[in-house]
Each structure stands twice: as C-alpha cells, then as structure tokens.
C-alpha cells in the first residue's frame, strides 16, 4: 500500500480524501492556491504544498506544479478527486512518468471516454443502447425528413461542434423541420464557426440515472447500482439519491442498466471507480450518455446504501490489490439522499455568493453525513466552483430519508453568505418530489409552482423580538464602555 498520497484538489473533496487516507494510515499531502492557504483540507492534511496564484489555471490545473509538489513531498501516488485534472489523460500519464501511481483509471480509458463521439461508438460496439440518431451532419432537407421520420417526432437538432445548448432545436413535426435546421445551423455557425447539425431522437421527460462501477487491475469488475440525479439546474446536479424511485416501478432496471454499464466499462479496459451516465425515459428505456472516469461528487449516497467505501477501494485498487467484493455480495439497504450545498442564491437565479462564513452550525445525529470544506470564519473564494458541502442522509425507506434530510437541513446554519440550504427544505416538502416523480425538468417546473412559505406568525414575532434583544444588548455594551467583562455580562443578564 502507499506511504504518502498527494491530493490534487481542494474543497470538500480534498477533505474527503484526506480523511480516507488518515483512516488507511497513509500520510496525506494537500495542495493549495493562494486563496486556499487556510483551507480545511490544508489544516487537516499531514503536509501541504503551495501551487501558485488563486486562479485555477495557475494552481489546480498546473500539471507541472502538482507533479513537482508530489516529488518534493515524496508522495508515491496522486488522487485527483473530481473536476480540475481528474479527467485529464495527460495528467494521468505525467504521474506515471514521474514514477507515481495515478489513483484512477488507465489514461487510455480517460482519453477514450473524453471524446463524446468516441464514447458513443464504444457504447454501440459494446451493445449498450444510445439515444437513436445519426452521427453524420444533415446535408439536405430530404435526408433530414427521412431520418426524422424514421426516428419519430419529436426529434432534437444538435450542433456537431456543439455544447451548452447552442445550435440545439426541438422539432415536433415535419413542417417545422426546414426552419429549425436553418435556425440551428446559423446559430451553430455563429457560436462555433461550424454550421453542421445532426439529428437525435428527443427523450421526453428524461431522468438522469447513472451506474457506479468498480473494477480492479486483475479483470474483476462489479456495479454498485444506480444514483438518480435528475434534479439539476443549468445541467448541474443538486440532489442525488439511491435507489432511484423509478426502481420501484421497474424492479429489473438496476440489473439491466448495471449489465450495460459493465459492458461499456469492460470495453474501455477500465479499472478503478467510474460512472456511466444514462438518460431514462418514462417507459424505463435507457440510453448511454457518457462515462465519468473518476470519483463522482455524489458518491456518498452509494456508500450509504451499500456500506462500501469507494475512496478506500480506489486506493486499494490503485495499489494493485484485488477487489474482494463479488457482484452477489453487493446489497442495497434503505435509501440515501444528498443535497449539494452551494454558495449561491436560489432566489436570484442561483447567483454565486462568495464571502466570509460568519456563523456555522452543522447538522448531526442519526443517519446524517456531512462532507464539508468550510468552517466559521472561512472566506469562500470567488475563483472556484461554489460547492461548500454535501449533506447526505440515510434512512430505512425513502420516506424516512426525506424526513431525516428535512430535519438535518433545519439544524444547519450557514451565515454570512447566501446558500441554497433553505431551498432544499422546500423541495423536501414538494408533493412531486415526495412522490418520486422526477425528471431533468423538475427544478424548472418546481419554480413555476413554487409557493411562498406559509406564514408562521409566532416565529415571525420571535424573530422581531430577538432582533430587539440583540439591539438592546449592543446599546448596553456601548454604554458600558470600558466595563470589565464580568460587569458587562452582569448588565446583559439584566436584559434576559
């Protein structure tokens, strides 16, 4: 096993990995940019190495600086976390060249899955379902009509060079096709200097469901079931859960999706932890979307229901150990939900809200797991992703997990910056969320039907009272001037 591992990341995931290393008796090296000098990960790690200026391009994305830090500190392996360099094949190779183990899949698999078309081809070759469509550009209206007719309306026009929804058009009937191709193509031309568009079947009210896989370097691979991540805003997941509520409707779906995921991962000669993402339509049909060749943000929900520690297995597998868990050993117990606590304001288009955490009270108690990268007094930097913490809960049933999440959210106090904490409480109360009626359009529809919070006159009165008590306390403190602490306390006690 490794003696010392460098964690090439920041925030809550760096803390998560440092914890795993400590439990495994492995020394940890955190890395930091200027803004993260006093981060929780730096404080918790055994050693820490400075990378550079706060911009990610000067620090967490600098392969040379990270390799150099790892060598200076004598690390024998590097854990990339998620984001930053975690899906960068060059980084994986640079680690190996420098004589260190990259804790993740082989660089070849990272590279193969990094290309959308490459991944799609591999999935097709592996016999996994993909969203029906053409890979070739539409070159005539006649062809387009033929293809769209065969796929069945509605269809989706997508830019070949695309991304971020640019050059994308939904087409519901043949009569709209010509104008849609023209619009999508000119939009794609403007955005990417490439007007090529292609056709795909539109998956209606899709759910985003992904399968966790875990494989060793000796050819043994298993799946750990699904995570439903349909609740997203701007294609960013905010709530994840396992099991997916859809599994009660289609009990054999986990097995079928798991098999498909394993076929894809095996075709890429994969090892270590990875995730295959699928879209699932309302009939329970699923289509390969992409593979994430790293640890996922939402891995805690899988850990909570399976009892397996994914980061520990990542370490052991990277060190060449055998995965001793057989597929038939994997048991899914109860239900887990995770809420991503972001420094952003759900009441103002989710605008980021960096700044100082002036007050922090974290939830605890049965079934609550908090993976957090913040502390009271910490300045949330503007430079990075606004994820502060992940609050995950486990319950014997989905209903119990929802109730527990609500309870944990009510204990959670984060002040000084805006967060989406209270917003999750509203979602936990939502009828459709409780019914498990999820789709990637959930949040948009939720905002449309969102009601103001019901009035709580007595709580409101107490809020007013407390604001007054606080003000009196301040004015007494001012009037006492240089009074000693005990005298001040005595005077304040008069205000109780």
């Amino acid at each position: 096993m490794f003696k010392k591992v460098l964690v090439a990341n920041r925030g809550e995931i760096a803390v998560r990995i440092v914890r795993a290393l400590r439990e495994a008796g492995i020394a940890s090296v955190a890395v930091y940019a200027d803004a993260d000098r006093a981060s929780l990960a730096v404080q918790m790690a055994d050693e820490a190495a400075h990378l550079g200026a706060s911009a990610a391009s000067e620090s967490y994305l600098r392969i040379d600086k990270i390799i150099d830090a790892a060598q200076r500190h004598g690390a024998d392996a590097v854990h990339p976390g998620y984001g930053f360099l975690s899906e960068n094949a060059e980084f994986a190779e640079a680690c190996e060249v420098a004589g260190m183990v990259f804790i993740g899949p082989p660089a070849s698999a990272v590279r193969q899955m990094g290309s959308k078309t490459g991944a799609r081809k591999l999935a097709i070759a592996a016999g996994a379902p993909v969203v029906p469509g053409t890979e070739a550009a539409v070159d005539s209206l006649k062809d387009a009509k033929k293809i769209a007719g065969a796929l069945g309306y509605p269809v989706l026009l997508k830019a070949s060079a695309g991304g971020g929804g640019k050059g994308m058009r939904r087409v519901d009937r043949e009569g709209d096709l010509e104008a849609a191709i023209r619009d999508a193509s000119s939009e794609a031309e403007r955005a990417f200097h490439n007007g090529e568009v292609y056709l795909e079947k539109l998956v209606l009210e899709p759910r985003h469901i992904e399968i966790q896989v875990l494989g060793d370097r000796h050819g043994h691979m298993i799946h750990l079931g699904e995570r439903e991540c349909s609740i997203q805003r701007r294609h960013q997941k905010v709530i994840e859960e396992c099991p997916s509520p859809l599994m009660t409707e289609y009990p054999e779906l986990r097995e079928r999706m798991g098999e498909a995921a394993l076929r894809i991962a095996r075709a890429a000669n994969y090892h270590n932890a990875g995730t295959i993402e699928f879209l699932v339509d309302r009939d329970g049909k699923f289509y390969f979307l992409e593979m994430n060749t790293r640890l996922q943000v939402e891995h805690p929900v899988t850990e909570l229901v399976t009892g397996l520690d994914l980061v520990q297995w990542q370490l052991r597998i990277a060190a060449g150990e055998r995965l001793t868990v057989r597929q038939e050993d994997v048991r899914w117990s109860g239900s887990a939900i995770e809420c991503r606590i972001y420094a952003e304001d759900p009441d103002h288009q989710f605008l980021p809200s960096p700044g100082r955490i002036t007050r922090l009270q974290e939830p605890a108690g049965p079934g609550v797991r908090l993976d957090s990268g913040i502390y009271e007094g910490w300045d949330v930097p503007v430079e990075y992703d606004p994820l502060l913490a992940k609050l995950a809960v486990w319950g014997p049933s989905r209903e119990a997990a929802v109730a527990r999440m609500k309870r944990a959210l009510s204990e959670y106090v984060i002040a000084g910056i805006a967060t989406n904490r209270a917003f999750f409480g509203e979602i936990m109360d939502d009828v459709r969320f409780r019914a498990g009626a999820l789709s990637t359009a959930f949040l948009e529809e939720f905002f449309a039907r969102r009601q103001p919070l019901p009035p709580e006159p007595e709580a409101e009165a107490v809020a007013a009272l407390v604001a007054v008590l606080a003000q009196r306390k301040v004015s007494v403190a001012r009037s006492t001037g240089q009074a000693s602490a005990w005298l001040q306390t005595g005077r304040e006690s008069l205000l109780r």
Partner: protein
Amino acid sequence: MAADGPGVAAAVKYHIVIDGKAAILSASGDHFAYHAEGEECVERDYSASPAGDGAWSILIDGRSYAAKLLGEGEVSINGRVFQVEVFDPRGPRGRRAAGERSGPQVVTTSMPGRVVRVLVTPGQQVAAGQRLIVVEAMKMQNEMKAPRAGRVASVKAEAGATVSAGDILVVIE
C-alpha cells in the same frame, strides 16, 4: 425573568421591518405584543435565555424557539430565516449616526409606508438633524432627519406617495 434593562421602560415600542413588511413590537422583559401590518396581533408571555454568542432560546407557552442572529439583519428561528430591521424610536440607529460623512448623502426610508409631509425643497440649506420628510406606517409617524448639514440636492418623494423600504427620499450634498 429579571426586570427590564437599565433605563428601559416597560413595553418600549419598536418599529420593525420584517421581510419587507412593517410591524410594531412592544416588548417588556417577559411580555411582547407584535403587530404586523394587516395581520392579527400576536401577544405572548415569553422567557428568553442567551444561548451562546448572538443566540437565544425563547420559550412561549412551552413552545421552544432556537434563535440566532446571522448578521446584517438576518435572524434564524428554528432554521427559518427572517430579514429583520429594528428602529428604536429613542435610539441612534434610526438616524444611523452618519453625521461625519462627507459627499452627497442619500436619506432613505427603512420602512415601507406613506409620505405624510415633505418639509424641504431642492436648493434649501439644512442643519444636521433638521426634519426633512415624514413617513407614516401603521399610524406611526417616522421623521427622516438630515444626517449632516448641507444643501438639499433633490427630493425624490411627494406627499401622499407610497414608499418601500430602501427608497431614496432626499439627497443632501
């Protein structure tokens, strides 16, 4: 419950703006009456105990409220966050003790209400503390006073107008 604080008479009235709504709180050491605009009065006996820095435990008829100041006019009650601003009619805060500032200065209303009287005109010289405008909310009149001496650059409100919290009423330069 101990007696009320030094120099604080029983049942002092405070103007409150809570989540953008005007309210009046009359509070003594163990009793309060809270009246939000257009709503029924909430009148209760209470017990308050400090529970750490900027935090209180409030009990009302055995019901427990965990209260925390979150800074910048935010109060959390059992996990629900309220935006609260307090205007003590006798305290300095309503007038914001801004006398030393230089440069143009805006006088804003901190409470939603109706402008009753405008007492100055543009171009007029005013002394620090001079009354500028009177805003009424919930039948209580609130006088907006000049934070410092200067010349009235503009008056942004007229008598009878409805104003919201934060609206600029007068600019002094």
